[in-house]
């Protein structure tokens, strides 16, 4: 019951966002083409291209037919044409997407994993040596903006120590394959990924720890101990399962900021993902490209939040049966 409701909510949100994508340019004053493509585009636009665009967006038809055409294009994965890259937007995005997914995905998994683990261990040993040192370290890290951390790491490991490459996702024209390619990718990934992890862990850690400290005081912990459960079981099976509920919510909401964070971090490390692409498109005023990327990112945030919500109902029966 609960799951279907969640799915419906997300579907509605998704459709609404897409509809907004359609309506907003229409509401702008002036030439709709200019609204869609920016005024600079008009300079390079040939009459032939213009005719083609009018045809595609059904600009000479009624609003309703335009709407249908818009959905039709979307359904085909047609996000328009980037004149800066001289290629369909979708194609360009698909090329950049894996890098962002690799970076954001691994950053997400690793920071969540470590943040939670450290939080559990620290929170269940409240006031102990490990707890105090972890708490101090991570409090210091907490609140560093992504790009500051990125620049710091770049300067330290890329420039000063020169152990990691300064830019890119692979060594250009090296033609590496197989295992050495993987190593090369990881080598390039290390700094941007490290930036992300260092910036993301403190939030997750602090919340997990806090939540653990509170849960360890709950009476069911005493019940578990009185059963004869080992401390490990008490921590992970009992306390952590309850402590992770707020953390899950946090991770969901962090997703949006991770993705925006990717914009900066990818820029700092010239990592060829969506963030970098967006930056360049902004410089070029490549409106279709910008629109496509934003749509893509919205979609990612939605999907992750959907997953988090679904997971939540699995973890907290009180929500599932509410």
């Amino acid at each position, binding site marked *: 019951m609960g799951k279907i409701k969640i799915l419906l909510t997300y579907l509605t949100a998704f459709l609404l966002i897409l509809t907004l994508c359609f309506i907003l340019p229409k509401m702008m004053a002036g030439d709709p083409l200019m609204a869609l493509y920016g005024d600079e585009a008009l300079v390079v636009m040939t009459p032939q291209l213009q005719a083609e665009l009018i045809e595609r967006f059904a600009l000479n038809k009624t609003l309703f037919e335009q709407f249908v055409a818009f959905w039709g294009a979307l359904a085909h994965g047609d996000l328009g044409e980037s004149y800066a890259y001289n290629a369909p937007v979708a194609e360009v995005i698909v090329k950049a997407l894996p890098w962002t997914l690799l970076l954001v995905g691994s950053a997400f998994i690793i920071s969540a994993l470590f943040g939670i683990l450290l939080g559990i261990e620290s929170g269940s040993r409240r006031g102990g040596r490990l707890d105090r040192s972890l708490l101090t370290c991570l409090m210091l890290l907490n609140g560093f903006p992504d790009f500051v951390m990125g620049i710091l790491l770049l300067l330290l490991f890329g420039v000063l120590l020169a152990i990691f490459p300064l830019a890119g996702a692979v060594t250009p024209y090296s033609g590496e394959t197989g295992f050495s390619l993987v190593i090369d990718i990881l080598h390039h990934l290390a700094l941007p990924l490290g930036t992300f992890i260092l910036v993301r862990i403190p939030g997750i850690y602090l919340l997990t720890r806090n939540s653990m400290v509170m849960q360890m005081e*709950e*009476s*069911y912990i*005493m*019940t*578990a*101990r*009185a*059963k*004869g*459960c*080992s*401390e490990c*079981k008490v921590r992970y*099976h*009992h306390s952590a*399962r*309850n402590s992770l*509920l707020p953390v899950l919510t946090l991770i969901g909401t962090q997703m949006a900021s991770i993705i925006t964070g990717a914009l900066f971090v990818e820029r700092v490390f010239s990592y060829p993902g969506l963030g970098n692409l967006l930056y360049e498109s902004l410089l070029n005023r490549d409106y279709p490209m910008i629109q496509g990327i934003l749509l893509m990112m919205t979609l990612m945030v939605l999907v992750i939040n959907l997953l988090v919500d679904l997971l939540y109902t699995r*973890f*907290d*029966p*009180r929500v599932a*049966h509410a």
Partner: protein
Amino acid sequence: MNAKVNFNQNMVAEHVTDQPVLQIRGLKVNYGEKSILQGIDLELTPDQPLAVIGESGAGKTTLGLSILGLSRGQVSGEIAFKNRDILALPLNELQKLRGREIAMVFQSMANALNPVLKVKDQVAEAAQVHKSFLPKKNMAQWVEDVLVSVELDRDKWSAFPHQLSGGAKQRALIAIAMVNSPDLLILDEPTALQDPLTTATIIRLLKKSIQGRSAIIITHDLSVAAQLSHWTAVLYEGRVIEYGRSRELLQKPRHPYTRGLIRSFPDMMRGKDLQGIPGRSEWLQDGCSFQPRCTQSISICKDRQPILQGDKRHLIACHRGGVIPLLECRNISTSFGSTKVLQDVSCILAEGETLALIGESGSGKTTLARTIMGLVHEDGGEILLEGKTVGKRDKNFYNRVQMICQNPMESINPGMNVLQAVGEPLAIQKIGRSADRDDQVRKVLNAAELPNNKIFLQSYPHHMSGGEAQRVAIARALALEPRLLIADEPTSALDPSVQEKIIRYLLNLQEKKGLALLFISHDIALARKVSDRMAVIRNGRIVETGQTSKIITHPRHPYTRALLEIAAAGSMCSMRLKS
């Protein structure tokens, strides 16, 4: 078979025929600076459940948790369970013990069960922790059997805790404790927060569960203690202050604190209103911990901690041996000429209690009062006050014993105004200077809810209404703060509403100061509301005496029964039925 508090090794050795399962010696628990348990000695033998009662904060739960090695304070002393010292066991040994040999039934508070796990799984876990060798199928069967035995509805098995009622949660918690069939079961407030019907079924279930095991029942609910335990230990500020057979202890408590606990517990059978214990826990370091709240403390109580002692079946920690008998009449006989007015009258009135003396006019009840006051000479017998025979009634006697009569004017000189009348006893006793005495007069008038302004002080009681004059008389009697007040029909001439005020005032004094009341009345309905014990007197003899509740519900003497019937016929409810 004997379970008892153990403070004297030799004594125990003689009487224990059954090996004790649990021996606690000198158990102390501190949380930082604050000490929660200040030296507990207890012993427990199988099949003789022990109830630990006391107010919240007395350390009951800490005691229970310490036995599982789960107390988080600094613990010292010894807890020997089957000859192993729990406090010295390494954690992994303790974990093997917990749940398997010693299990605890927790109170079904919010979150006593893990909110995100199914009830059945939580019960199963308690078994799995210790029986990992059991095949899955047998384990499931095992858990099912336990769930059936605690009478948890089958459709609740796979539910989550928030879907269960308080009673069902409590059953699940019992199942968790019972699943390994432990030797020692500790029940921590097992019925708190439940409604009466649920409580009754849970108690039935618990009775079944503790059969054939050792059990400790931690509770503030005296009726739970009465129903489940053989022995009761009363805990006050981390010390056992009274210990004995539950029946005896709960019916005839000896420690002032235990008496206060029982008095403040609503009991169906008792007619007297709830009375509390003055003050609150103060955790003083020296002397008797109950001393600040005790109405009968003496100088030694402040300086020295009383030790728990007594015969093996009833131990008490009190320098005065518990609630003292304030007044004792032994075989009093009195006659006017050749008419015997009192024959062999004996009665006891304890500190802070009310003894109602019930009888019709001419039964000799007023004569007894006057004999005690020394106004009538006794032919034989003995009167003791605080354990000492009373000879000539001197100042010292009147300092401690005062009397009020049905007619307030009997005790007040008609020529005196309020200030003089109330201050008279103080003047006779030569207490303080005149100004101090006037202050005291104002104080007692205020306490009796009378005005203490100049106009009132100078008015004459003889010009007042009956109720007001009686209160002046009471104020006069109480000006010396006596230990015993003999009240001879104090309210029979008054309106019921005035009567209620006066009675309430006297009972409040009793609660706060430990005033003992000898309440003389022919009105059994009124006596029932004010007295702890009752003595029925007829033709100069006491025909029946005992706890008021017992006499009212099970009168033995035909005369008592007749009195009760008359009183019942006068009840307003039955009048309505008849008309």
